């Protein structure tokens, strides 16, 4: 006997079914078209986000099926996954029924049928559990970050009704049919006991009612998608598909060729790229961005979620209003450190950071409106190539006595070492460049520096919205390097690393760019940097730099080096790896005073100290400086010290150590 169940009980009414289904799809399509028209108000072409189409499709399928963007330990995610997986299964089963019924394919029979039946049954229960949790969360626990706009009940009701009517239908059917495989739907079988002993007439009425009811719920669900929060099914999928594959790691260059342009960056809602408008609509208000935003958590007036919601409202009104200063306050825009915590936690991969930089670009380029400290830094970078207006000639002072040639004198060097502004000028951070250089010497690397020819890479200028300054710096640096045959650049700073590696190629600069931790890891693994001294007994904690951990997923290299140097793994702080908490210096914030709320550096320092740390290890000169300030402000000088990983490694690898030595010569 074939394992299946009777289909087509209501086949004489199929014309009605198809009429209704057709109507639902038409209503849905009309709604979707209306939404798509909203996004078309934006700038740019569809092709902007169609590179690598196969990878995009694959990524979305994996995103949806594994719910990987949603699955983060800090937030409840099971309930959503149950609903998604359940509905995917419901869709699959419906498809199987249709294929068997209309095309005679054995898609709803055999062992496959039994498995499907069991899965459907169990997932109906899981969806109900999930939706109950969602209801509980929305109306009882009410987490602060969760937006709860009017009309959020309808989607949940529809989500609940579908498996509910499905289970009842199955129960009613099993109460009468002598189904040999009834136990394959255990929940339905349990429901069946409520209906035992129905007379045939009642059964028929009940079954027919439930069947049409179940169908109606499914069709109403489809029809209302574009008109309710259910639209995140479509907008979210689209947002994931059209995601900028580099995003905040390589911001979009602006075109300055039109000298008559009167506006740069995003002034009003229609100045945004269409994907940003889609992003604004894809937001469900889950608030994970806000719950992770270091600016929000230290009481700054920035909420990435509220910004997105405000933009969506602007879009609905097709508002000609300027966004910066009215829809979102200037202080909120300047509060972002571009740490990318919001993006990493956003289930929709909304491009929070580039969107915010779009608005900063308008403030800086079009309105010339920004905190006064920035002007000093911009001017410094413009004329002296560093934000502190220190002499260009002083750029290689850190290297005095270390026997490091200038690239001009050693054009055949295998590596160009790029310390960056902080390590070149800041007295404390210089020690990190010295440690790195000494380690390279120790490993026998032939390297050179640019010295006074090196200019600020432009990371902070770009992220504070001064795209014009960024491009002029990038062009200058690229032109400086053009005559040399540089293949590999090792940077001392994660910000230079990101900018040189990800952002210079669009402007014509292409080299192999390596952060010093990666390079040192390679040297250690090749046995070129043997550990000499016994490890110190101090408790060492590593603070992940956002630009390494979140921008590049580089959490292993620094830990490898520390483990080698210390003979044991470093202690971990609760917010570590990709979950790291920003030091407060990214996105140009290094150049700005932090006036509102609690200082991020202090917040982070307290967290690191709470691990019992005696030494805080960093791999970024900006983190180093920010945390050192946090340390001083906490009055912990002398009790806790902060070192770059290179300094700690140099202490273990160099004869005589490094950290407690005054500047050493070779």
């Amino acid at each position, binding site marked *: 006997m074939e394992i299946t169940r009777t289909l087509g009980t209501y086949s004489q009414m199929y014309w009605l079914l198809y009429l209704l289904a057709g109507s639902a799809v038409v209503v849905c399509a009309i709604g979707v078209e209306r939404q798509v028209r909203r996004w078309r108000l934006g700038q740019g072409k569809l092709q902007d986000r169609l590179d690598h189409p196969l990878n995009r499709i694959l990524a979305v399928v994996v995103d949806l099926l594994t719910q990987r963007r949603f699955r983060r330990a800090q937030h409840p995610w099971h309930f959503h996954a149950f609903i998604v997986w359940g509905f995917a299964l419901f869709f699959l089963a419906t498809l199987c029924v249709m294929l068997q019924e209309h095309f005679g394919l054995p898609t709803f029979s055999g062992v496959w049928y039994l498995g499907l039946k069991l899965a459907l049954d169990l997932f109906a229960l899981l969806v109900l559990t999930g939706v109950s949790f969602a209801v509980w969360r929305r109306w009882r626990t009410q987490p602060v970050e969760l937006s709860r706009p009017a009309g959020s009940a309808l989607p949940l009701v529809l989500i609940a009704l579908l498996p509910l009517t499905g289970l009842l239908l199955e129960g009613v059917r099993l109460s009468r049919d002598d189904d040999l495989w009834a136990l394959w739907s255990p929940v339905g079988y349990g429901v069946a006991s409520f209906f035992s002993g129905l007379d045939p007439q009642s059964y028929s009425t009940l079954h027919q009612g439930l069947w049409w009811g179940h169908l109606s719920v499914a069709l109403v669900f489809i029809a209302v998608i574009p008109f309710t929060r259910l639209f995140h099914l479509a907008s979210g999928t689209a947002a994931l598909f059209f995601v900028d594959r580099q995003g905040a790691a390589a911001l979009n260059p602006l075109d300055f060729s039109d000298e008559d342009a009167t506006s740069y960056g995003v002034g009003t809602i229609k100045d945004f790229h269409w994907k940003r408008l889609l992003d604004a609509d894809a937001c469900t208000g889950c608030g994970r961005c806000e719950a992770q935003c270091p600016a929000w958590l230290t009481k700054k007036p920035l909420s990435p979620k509220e910004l997105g919601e405000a933009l969506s409202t602007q879009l609905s009104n097709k508002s000609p209003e300027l966004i910066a200063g009215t829809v979102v306050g200037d202080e909120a825009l300047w509060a972002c450190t571009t740490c990318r915590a919001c993006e990493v936690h956003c289930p929709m991969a909304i491009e929070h950071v580039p969107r915010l930089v779009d608005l900063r670009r308008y403030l800086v380029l079009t309105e010339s409106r920004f905190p006064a400290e920035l002007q000093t830094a911009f001017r410094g970078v413009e004329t002296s190539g560093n934000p502190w*207006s220190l002499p260009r000639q002083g750029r290689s002072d850190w290297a005095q006595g270390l026997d490091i040639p200038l690239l001009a004198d050693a054009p055949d060097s295998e590596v160009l070492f790029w310390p960056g502004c902080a390590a070149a000028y800041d007295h404390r951070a210089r020690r990190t460049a010295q440690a790195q250089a000494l380690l390279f010497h120790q490993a026998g690397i032939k390297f050179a520096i640019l010295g006074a020819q090196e200019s600020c890479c432009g990371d902070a200028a770009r992220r504070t919205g001064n795209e014009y300054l960024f491009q002029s710096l990038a062009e200058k640096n690229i032109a400086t390097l053009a005559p040399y045959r540089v293949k590999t650049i090792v940077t001392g700073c994660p910000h230079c690393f990101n900018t040189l590696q990800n952002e210079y190629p669009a402007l014509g600069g292409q080299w192999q760019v390596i952060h010093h931790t990666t390079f040192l890891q390679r040297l250690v693994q090749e046995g070129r940097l043997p550990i000499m001294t016994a490890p110190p007994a101090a408790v060492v904690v590593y603070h992940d730099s956002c630009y390494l951990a979140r921008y590049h997923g580089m959490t292993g290299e620094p830990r490898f080096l520390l483990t080698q140097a210390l003979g044991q793994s470093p202690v971990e702080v609760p917010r570590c790896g990709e979950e790291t908490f920003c030091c407060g210096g990214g996105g140009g914030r290094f150049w700005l005073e932090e006036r509102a709320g609690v200082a991020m550096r202090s917040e982070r320092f307290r967290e690191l100290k709470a691990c019992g740390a005696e030494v805080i290890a960093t791999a970024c000169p900006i983190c180093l400086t920010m945390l050192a300030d946090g340390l001083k402000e906490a009055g912990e000088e002398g009790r806790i010290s902060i070192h770059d990983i290179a300094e700690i490694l140099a202490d273990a690898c160099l004869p005589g150590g490094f950290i407690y030595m005054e500047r050493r010569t070779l």
Partner: protein
Amino acid sequence: MKVVVLVNAVPDTAATPEIAPDGRSVLTEQLEFVLDPYDEYAVEEAVRLKESLGAEVIAVSIGGDVARKALRCAFAMGVESGVLVRLPGGMELTGRGRSFCLLPTLRELSPDLILAGKQTVDSDDAQVPERVAELLDFVHASAVSQLTIGEGARLLVNREIEGGHLVIDLPLPAVVTTEKGINIPRYPALPQVLKAKSKPLHEVAPPLDVDLTAGWQVESVTLQHTARKQQIFSGDIITGVQQLAELLRQDA
């Protein structure tokens, strides 16, 4: 109202210059030139007069390509046009020569007000605006920290003097030099920066009827190396601060 603002390009003061082999001048090839910071105040003030009173503002400079750059900086800040008195390459002028150089242009423009920085930051000269006032027979006020256009073509300016303020009422036409604090020069918005490239910049030749180079000449120029005194105070923070304060009182 017509306002002329005199501008100069100066080497970025953060840079350490190199002395030429002859020992009489500074090598300029390696130096980054910027609009003189004192002139920036003058330009900002002039642009504000343009914005508030509709004044016509023209920037004037002397020199070669770096001077052109200074003019473009002034354009980016909002000045509408400029005149460059182009000097032959390598020609160095004294304050006297520079003021004679400007004279024909200024006579032709016949402004109501001439604004300039109170001095140049590179050579600390504070001569040209005053000499120009003299040659044109304009009244003048130097190192002005506040400027108001009063009734009946008069100016009210505020000068900070040792321990107080001096308010001067003067008739137009006049020459006024600007002191730090008169305003906060703007960081030009990008559309202005890009527009600056196409604003009219006229070049004129220096006058031939005067000997521009007569006068003093530089005998030698040397660099001063000041070694910074570095001292670390040990012990607790309170005594450390007291020691530092004491030392600053005595030595600084």
